[in-house]
């Protein structure tokens, strides 16, 4: 039961004959029934890029509404839906899907395997996630309820109770939100189980755990975290639905239930979730930075230990999102300490990246531009994170634009930058063609300028007292000019992303032919042809170090002598 002829043909194959209707239908069908990890990975990635554009459009409208005080571009209700959907879409339908899609594509190639451990579970997970996302957006049409309430969810992406209880949110908007997250949650759990099983059980001969590419290690760590992160959210959503439909009282404060319990459960999910999102970004940097610095990763065991350390410690920090909710001083102090502690292994990673680059011969091709900017931005985001961990200061900064600036610094400045780096780096492997360096540099510099214009400045309205989740603000607060600059930066970023989209599509047809290994890299995926054949490797590889291709290219100075 082989997949039908791989649709993305290599540039060296002869041009296909004119496709008949039957051939087109068969080609389409192959995408629906596939269990091949590469095709599913591409499906996930296409899905995530689509929702990146949707959520990006939502962000553009938000920024236009906030460009000056008292604008009336959208009504308050629409604005509240926009930022709720923007957050939910970006986290679940862009972030999580991109991570697992990319892991699905790359991991078997990096460990010398034929496919993931459970190909059918892989397909199931994708289609569950896909359905969930469509369900969320269906709420725009189907969410109407009594009194005209309903439509898309409009309660922020963390949806505090009791605002989400039946009494305060009539209509079905929240139900779509809860069901979507439960369904995509099943998809994520399936994908996470698959990643861990594959990385542990499908490695080629000689690939011990300490010879695993760091991308695979960190994907495994992120997946392990996802198992204990997404499930509390699923539990909380079930409780919410029980409250709304079966007359339950979990969050019903009139019956003795607790609003704070929702906050705890949500952030028990919500904080580790951001690490699930950022660890794969680190995973990408761990692959790109050594190759473009022409040096092995400095401190491989330390990087593994730091990542695992972050994973465990991040499970203990959640209530730093709740410093203002009225915990005792002891409770607050505990979460200050745990949050500051999680910064230590994070900092170690930054130092290791710098040490990898130190003494290297750095090639600033587009992937490395994005990764270098990532290191700079991740440093800044970590520092604003430390500021936010200081609970008394947090009492001022919480729920202000300072927090929004901080987490967008991570989500865009660290994660999105690394995703762009990954696309520029691995596009030649997936399609057989290089992306345009010229367009890549335009994309990078415009995006970098727009990003800093928006998110550097955005810290300041927060310091000046501007809260989040507001559809407009008073003119007498002095926030207008700053918001104007922030919005302009957003538009610049949008232009940069358009250039990227053009590059992505154009390079498929006109890009320079890449060959197996255009970047002179060292991990197993660069051994296969570009794009890889359906079976990945003609012969099962046998490896002797963490950088198998380095050992082949440098037989006089192989890695295994130093491990």
């Amino acid at each position, binding site marked *: 039961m082989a997949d039908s002829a791989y649709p993305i043909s290599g540039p060296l194959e002869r041009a296909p004959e004119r496709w008949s209707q039957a051939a087109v239908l068969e080609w389409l069908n192959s995408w629906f029934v596939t269990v091949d990890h590469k095709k599913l990975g591409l499906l996930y990635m296409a899905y995530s890029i689509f929702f990146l554009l949707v959520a990006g459009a939502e962000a553009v409208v938000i920024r236009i509404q906030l460009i000056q005080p008292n604008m009336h571009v959208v009504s308050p209700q629409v604005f509240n839906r926009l930022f709720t959907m923007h957050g939910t879409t970006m986290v679940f339908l862009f972030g999580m899907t991109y991570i697992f899609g990319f892991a699905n594509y790359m991991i078997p190639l990096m460990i010398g395997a034929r496919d993931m451990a459970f190909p059918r579970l892989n397909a199931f997970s994708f289609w569950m996630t896909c359905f969930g996302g469509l369900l969320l957006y269906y709420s725009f049409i189907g969410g109407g309820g009594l009194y005209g309430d309903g439509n898309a969810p409009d309660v922020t992406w963390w949806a505090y109770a009791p605002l989400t209880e039946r009494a305060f949110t009539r209509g079905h908007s929240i139900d779509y939100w809860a069901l979507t997250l439960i369904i995509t949650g099943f998809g994520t759990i399936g994908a996470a189980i698959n990643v861990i099983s594959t990385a542990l059980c499908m490695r080629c001969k000689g690939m011990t755990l300490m010879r695993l590419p760091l991308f695979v290690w960190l994907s495994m760590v992120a997946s392990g975290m996802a198992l204990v992160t997404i499930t509390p959210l699923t539990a909380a959503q079930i409780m919410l639905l029980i409250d709304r439909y079966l007359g339950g*009282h*979990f969050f019903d404060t009139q019956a003795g239930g607790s609003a704070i319990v929702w906050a705890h459960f949500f952030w028990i999910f919500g904080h580790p979730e951001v690490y699930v999102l950022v660890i794969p970004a680190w995973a990408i940097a761990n692959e790109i930075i050594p190759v473009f610095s022409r040096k092995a990763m400095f401190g491989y065991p330390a990087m593994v230990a730091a990542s695992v350390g972050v994973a465990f410690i991040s499970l203990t920090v959640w209530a730093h999102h709740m410093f203002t909710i009225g915990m005792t001083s002891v409770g607050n102090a505990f979460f200050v300490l745990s949050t500051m502690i999680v910064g230590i292994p994070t900092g170690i990673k930054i130092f290791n990246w710098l040490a990898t680059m130190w003494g290297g011969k750095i090639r600033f091709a587009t992937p490395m531009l994005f990764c270098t900017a990532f290191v700079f931005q991740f440093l800044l985001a970590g520092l604003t994170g430390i500021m936010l961990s200081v609970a008394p200061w947090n009492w001022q900064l919480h729920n202000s634009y300072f927090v929004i600036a901080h987490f967008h610094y991570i989500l865009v400045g660290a994660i999105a930058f690394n995703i762009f780096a990954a696309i520029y780096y691995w596009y030649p492997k997936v399609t057989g063609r290089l992306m345009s360096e010229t367009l890549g540099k335009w994309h990078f510099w415009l995006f970098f300028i727009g990003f800093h214009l928006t998110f550097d400045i955005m810290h300041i309205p927060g310091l000046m007292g501007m809260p989040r989740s507001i559809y407009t603000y008073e003119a007498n607060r002095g926030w207008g000019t700053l918001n104007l600059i922030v919005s302009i930066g957003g538009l610049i970023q949008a232009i940069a992303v358009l250039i990227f989209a053009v590059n992505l599509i154009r390079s498929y047809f006109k890009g320079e032919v890449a060959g197996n290994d255009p970047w002179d890299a060292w991990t197993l995926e660069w051994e296969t042809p570009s794009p890889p054949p359906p079976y990945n490797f003609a012969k099962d590889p046998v490896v002797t170090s963490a950088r198998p291709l380095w050992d082949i290219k440098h037989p006089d100075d192989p890695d295994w002598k130093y491990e």
Partner: protein
Amino acid sequence: MSATVAVAKMEPAWVLPSKGRVAMFCLIVGESAIFTIFVVAYIYNIGKSLYGPTPQVLSVPVFNTVCLLSSSLTIVLAEKAIEHGKIKRFALWWALTFVLGAIFLIGTGIEWHKLIYEDGLTISSNLFGTTYYSLVGLHASHVVVGLIALSTVLLFTLTGHVRREHAERLQVLALYWHFVDGVWVVVFTVVYIVGR
């Protein structure tokens, strides 16, 4: 062209863990997290109901518990049987496991019938009802899923499709059943001992 090994010494055998076991272990970790949240919600809300039936209306389900926990024993005996290729004995112990699980479910149903109709405890009656039915119900739903899996295997066994080489897969499934029993130990302790 694959990398060639340049070492002369004997390579140790390349053994990787079984993917079925790893996957089931991961699933169990995830499910444990869900149950932990419901248990925490239950414990947090002990004594917080402002009105309605109290945990005093619960009677300790000793018989049900004995049945469910014994089913862990019978499933181990079934696993041992299939390892040695004794299909008939395997079918016997496996069927007994299913029956014990079913008795547990029926017993839970009877208990709930009494709670709903005689004591007025429902999922919406008060906070205690909400936390009780959601926690015990979540566990019961996992028992149902387990029973469906068990009965499917039983069907395959009775139609002669199950053989000794399937022993490992059945052990993976048995892991799930042990997990369900393990969760019951926690739920039982929290609901019927600590919470009353």
